[in-house]
C-alpha cells in the first residue's frame, strides 16, 4: 500500500462523504421549506402529468434557455449532454462485470468528451466576450469552467494520447467500493484528473452547482396551475388562521 494510494483513497472517501452529506442536507432543506403561494410561471400545466412533462423538457432539452439565447443553449446543452455520456462511460470503473449498455456506449462516451469541452470553451468565451455576462461573473464562475475544462482535457489526453494503466485504475476504485486500498498508477495526468474531480465533488453542494437539485424544486416550474380548484395552504400560513 503506497502513500499515494492511501492519500487518494482518503481524498475520495472524504469527497464522496462531503458530496452526499452536503447534497442530502440541501435537498432536505428544499423539500422541508414550504412554498406558501402558487407561483408557476404561466401558461403552466393544469395537472401533474403536465408538470412532469414540463420538468422533463426543461431538464432534458433546456427549453427555457432555448427560448432565451440560442448560443448559450447550444454550448450549455453540448456540455451537459457530453458530460452525461462521459459519466455513464466511467461507470465501467466501478463495475467488476460491466453492464451491457455501459459497454455499448463506450465509443459514444469517448467522443462525447469533445462535445463537453467544446461546450465549456463556448461558455467560457461567452463569459469573457459578452459584456453583460462578464459583468455578472465572479472569479469563481471562471474557475468553475476552467476546472471542468482541465478535467475534460486531462481525461481526453488519457483516452486519446498517452494511455494510463486503466486496469489498475479500475482495480483501485473497485477496491474503494470494498473498503480495501489497491495501488493507483502514479501518472501525473491521471492524478491531476482525479484530484480535480474530487475537488469538484467537494464544492458541488456549496456552490452554484446546486442548480442541479434546485431545478426540481423551483416552484415556478414544478407547481400545477390549479389554485382555484384546489386550496393550497402552507403550514405556517394555516397557523395565521387560528
Amino acid at each position, binding site marked *: 500500500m503506497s502513500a499515494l494510494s492511501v492519500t487518494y483513497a482518503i481524498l475520495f472517501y472524504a469527497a464522496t462523504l462531503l458530496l452526499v452529506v452536503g447534497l442530502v442536507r*440541501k435537498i432536505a*432543506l*428544499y423539500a422541508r*421549506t*414550504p*412554498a*406558501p*403561494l*402558487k*407561483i408557476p*410561471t*404561466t*401558461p*403552466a*400545466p*393544469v395537472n401533474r402529468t*403536465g408538470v412532469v412533462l414540463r420538468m422533463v423538457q*426543461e431538464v432534458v432539452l433546456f427549453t*427555457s*434557455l432555448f*427560448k*432565451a*439565447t440560442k448560443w*448559450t443553449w447550444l454550448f*450549455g446543452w453540448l456540455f451537459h449532454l457530453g458530460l452525461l455520456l462521459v459519466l455513464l462511460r466511467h461507470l465501467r470503473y466501478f463495475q467488476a462485470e460491466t453492464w451491457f449498455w455501459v459497454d455499448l456506449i463506450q465509443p459514444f462516451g469517448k467522443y462525447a468528451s469533445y462535445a463537453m469541452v467544446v461546450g465549456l470553451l463556448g*461558455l467560457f468565451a*461567452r*463569459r469573457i466576450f459578452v*459584456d*453583460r*455576462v462578464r*459583468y*455578472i*461573473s*465572479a*472569479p*469563481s464562475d471562471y*474557475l468553475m469552467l476552467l476546472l471542468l475544462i482541465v478535467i475534460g482535457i486531462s481525461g481526453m489526453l488519457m483516452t486519446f494520447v498517452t494511455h494510463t494503466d486503466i486496469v489498475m485504475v479500475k482495480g483501485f476504485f473497485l477496491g474503494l467500493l470494498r473498503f480495501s486500498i489497491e495501488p493507483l498508477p502514479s501518472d501525473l495526468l491521471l492524478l491531476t484528473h482525479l484530484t480535480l474531480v474530487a475537488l469538484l465533488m467537494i*464544492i458541488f453542494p*456549496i*456552490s*452554484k452547482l*446546486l*442548480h442541479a437539485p*434546485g*431545478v426540481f*424544486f*423551483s*416552484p*415556478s*416550474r414544478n407547481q400545477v*396551475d390549479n*389554485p*382555484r380548484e384546489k*386550496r*393550497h*395552504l*402552507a403550514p405556517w*400560513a394555516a397557523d*395565521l388562521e387560528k
Partner: protein
Amino acid sequence: MADFETPELREYPIIPKLKEGVMEHSKPYVAKVQFQEALGFPGELVDNWEEKALEKLDDLRGRYRSLQVYLDSCVKCGACTDKCHYYLGTSDPKNMPVARQDLLRQVYRRYRTFAGKYFPKLVGAKDLTKDVLDDWYSYFHQCSQCRRCSVYCPYGIDTAEISMAAREIMDTIGVGQKYCNEIIGKAATVGNNLGLPEPALADTLEGLEEEVEEDTGVPVKFPLDQKGAEILLVTPSADFFAEPHVDGLIGYAKVFHEAGVSWTMSSYASEAANFGMFIGSYENMRNLSLRIRKAAEDLGVKRIVFGECGHAWRVAYSFLNTLAGPFDFLDPNYPVPQHICEFTYDLIQKDKLKFDKSENDHMTLTFHDSCNVARASRMGDKAGGQFDIPRAIIRAACNNFVDMPADAIGEATFCCGGGGGLLTDDLMELRVKGAQPRMEAYKRVVEDNGVTNVAAICAICKSQFTKVLPYYGFGMTDIVSVHQLVSEALILSDAPSDDTESNAEAEA
C-alpha cells in the same frame, strides 16, 4: 417636461451596452413614520438594522422555498440579462435580472454560505453596508415584478420573488416605500386605494347610471352594497374615475345588464388591487383579501367576479383561495373568483351577447398582455386562456385587430413600465424608460398595420400608458379598456328602437 431624455424608438431593437450607475439616483420617496407603523413596520431605520435584515432574510428563506432555491441555484448563465424592460430601457447593468438578484444574493452568500464566509472575493460576496442598502432601495424599486425573466431562466428563477423578499426586509428594518405603504394603509382602513368613502362612491356610481341612461336610453344599474345580489364585482378603484378605466366599468355593467343577473359592488371591499403583494407581505396581502371574503359573506352573494386589473387578477386567481378561502359558501358551479373577461366570453360563446362591431370601426386595435395576467395567472380552463379569451372578446366587438410582434406579446409580453408598485410620479424617469420596449413594439404595428389604439385589462397599465404614450409621440387616449370596446359595440336588447337600423347594417 422632465429632466431626462426619452429613449429613442428604433426600427429593430438592439440590446444596449452597459452603462454603469446611470439609474442609481432613481429612488422612490421613503414612507413616513405613521404609514410604516400603521402596517406594523418600524417608522425609520432601526439601529441594529444589519442584524435585523439578516434575521428577516433567514425567516423568509425558511418560509419561502422559492427564495431559498433561487438564491442557491443561479449559475450566472446570462440568459436573463437582456430580458428586463428596465435594463433594455436604461442600460443600467443592475437592472439585469441576475444582477438585481445578486444585490441580495451577495449578502446571503457573505453571511450564510461557506464560500462567502471564507472566500468572499472569489464568489462575489459582500458585506451588508449602507451602500448595499442604498442599492437595494434603488434597484429593488426598479423591478415591476413582471416575471419576464422567469420565463427564460433555465431554473425558472423569478426575480419578482427576490424583490418582494428584499422589499419586505427593507420594510422590516424601517425603510418602506411611500407609495405602496400609504396605499395599503388606505385600502386596509377605507376599503380602496383611493381612500374613497362610501358616500363618494355611491355618488359616483349614481352619476354613471345617469350618464349611461342618457347615452343609451337604458337604465343600466351600478348597484352598491346590495344584499342578496348574485354576483359581487370587485374592481380596481381606478375604474370609478380614471380614463379609460371608467369606460371599462360601464362595459361590465352593460354585460351584467344584458346577462340579466343581479350584481353589486361593495363599499367595504371596493378595491381589487392588492399592494400587499408588491411589498412581499403575506400578512398585508391576506388582510386585504379577507375584506373581500367578508364582503361576499355579508352581502350573501353566490359568485365573485373581478374587474380588469393585472396584479389584482394574480392575487385573485392564484392566491385568493389560499389567503381567504375556502369559498365553500359560494356557488360551486363557477370558479372562485372569475374574471370579467371569463364572464363576458362565456356569454359570447353561448351567443347571448349581440354586437354592432362597426361602432368600433374608427379604431384598429392591438392588445397589450399585462404581465401578471400573462405570466402569473390564467383564464378559462386551458393553459394560455389568458391570451385567447381577451383577444376573442376584442374580435367579437371589433372588426380591426392586429397583434404586436410575437416577442412582445403572450408569455413574452413586455411590462408597461409601471407595475409592481412603481406607478408613482417620483419614479417618472424609470417609468418612461422602462416603457421603451413596449412602445417599440407598439410603434411597429402603428407604422406597419395602421394600428390606432391599444387595449388592456389592467388599471395600472392603463394609467401608465396614459402617462407615457405622449413621451413617445403617441396620443394619451390611444389606450382603451377591453370592456370599453365591449361597451361601445354591445347591443342592449331593451334599447329604444331607433337602433334597429344599425343592427341591420352590422348583420349585412
